[in-house]
């Protein structure tokens, strides 16, 4: 029986991008549905009644919510191709730790970059420190997953598609501060699973300008 996979998503969402990358890594065919977050559809509300948020993966009619949980689910169900989490429990724990750090700390600091007026210098500095910590974790490995693209890489790459936007908005560049991360991001973009899952930079920047207006920030 063929698997029926539907992804309820919103194209600029970093969380949605993670799931797209994971599905592409596993070579899975799925139906992509872009949600209107101002007018959420009945399927989204039915499939994620608790949070009413995207992304939601619907696999053979059953919903899975929360991007990190979805990525792990994809990795466990389609375990024979391109494993994302390492097999060793200790390295799995490390991967989960860093994915959590990215989602909680980096995400929060990224939001502060453009939402808080008057704290830009401090926000930029903290964001870069956070990235430097991640760069330290990467070390000299080609990917966070080691020789192969893995769970932490999937979790971090979407932030890099937004980084272009943040660099313009907050007027800073990470090129000098985190050269290894820039190299890593370029290496990841060479993978088809990544480049086809991330939105066009200019389109994202235009969306960001709309988002700022909506939030009443100039």
């Amino acid at each position, binding site marked *: 029986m063929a698997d029926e996979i539907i992804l309820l998503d919103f194209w600029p969402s970093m969380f949605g991008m993670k799931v797209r990358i994971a599905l592409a890594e596993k070579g899975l065919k799925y139906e992509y549905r872009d949600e209107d977050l101002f007018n959420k559809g009945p399927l989204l509300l039915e499939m994620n009644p*608790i949070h009413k948020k995207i992304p939601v993966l619907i*696999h053979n009619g*059953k919903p*899975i*919510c*929360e991007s990190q*949980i*979805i990525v*792990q*689910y994809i990795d*466990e*169900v389609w375990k024979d191709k391109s494993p994302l989490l390492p097999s060793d*429990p*200790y390295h*799995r*724990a*490390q991967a*989960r*730790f860093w994915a*959590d*750090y990215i989602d909680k700390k980096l995400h929060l600091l990224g939001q502060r970059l453009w939402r808080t007026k008057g704290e830009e210098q401090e926000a930029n500095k903290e964001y870069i420190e956070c990235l430097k*910590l991640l760069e330290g974790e990467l070390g000299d490995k080609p990917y966070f997953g080691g020789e192969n693209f893995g769970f932490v890489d999937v979790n971090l790459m979407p932030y890099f598609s937004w980084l272009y936007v943040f660099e313009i908005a907050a007027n800073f560049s990470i090129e000098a501060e985190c050269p290894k991360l820039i190299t890593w991001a370029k290496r990841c973009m060479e993978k088809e699973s990544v480049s086809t899952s991330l939105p066009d930079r200019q389109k994202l920047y235009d969306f960001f300008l709309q988002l700022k207006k909506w939030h009443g920030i100039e």
Partner: protein
Amino acid sequence: MATSDVKLLGAWPSPFALRVHIALNIKSIDYECLEENLLAKSQLLLQSNPVHKKIPVLIHHDKPICESLAIVQYIDEAWSSAPSILPSDPYDRAVARFWAAYIDDKWFPWLNGVANAQGAEAKKAALDQVREGLVVLEEAFGKCSKGKDFFSGDRIGYVDIALGCFLRWVYVAEKRNDVKLLVEDKMPGLAAWANKFCEDGAVKDVMPDKDELLEFANMILEARAKLNASSNN
């Protein structure tokens, strides 16, 4: 396995450290418990968790694992013989992880918010929110337990641990605010579950004493209130 192979850096009032104690007990693992003084953190803690400098940290064969739910999953995977903490089916695992994330990201901040709420109205709103969260979890309990004693079925598992570790702190919030949060007629499933959880063999010897925790909470919250009062002058 030698006791010193497994060390837990914890603190007796911490619900997050309690999760790890329970997981280790489920697997019958011998371990050394190192009690941290959170006002004077040890070198070992600072070295083992340089990013967050927080407990709990599990140190296994000298390698640190941080973040309570990552530690619980590690324990389940590293000691893979039964009993299991997470279900074996990937969909059931995703559901368990979802509820643990709800507890950590939504419900626990609400519980924490009760202590921080200033004024009677804010307190009431904070307490109502905790109760609403428990109503959601009551429904989740119904679906996950399928009529059995625990979220995981016959034995305690991931979601039981994720939520159960907060039961003493729920008691503290109830006593300090003179209210009921785990209301039996609104949440019969959870009320029964709470009693069974606290009596479980893996839990009862490591759950902090109710009155000791209440005394501890009173002490730190009063000290914090004094600090806030003096800094507002």
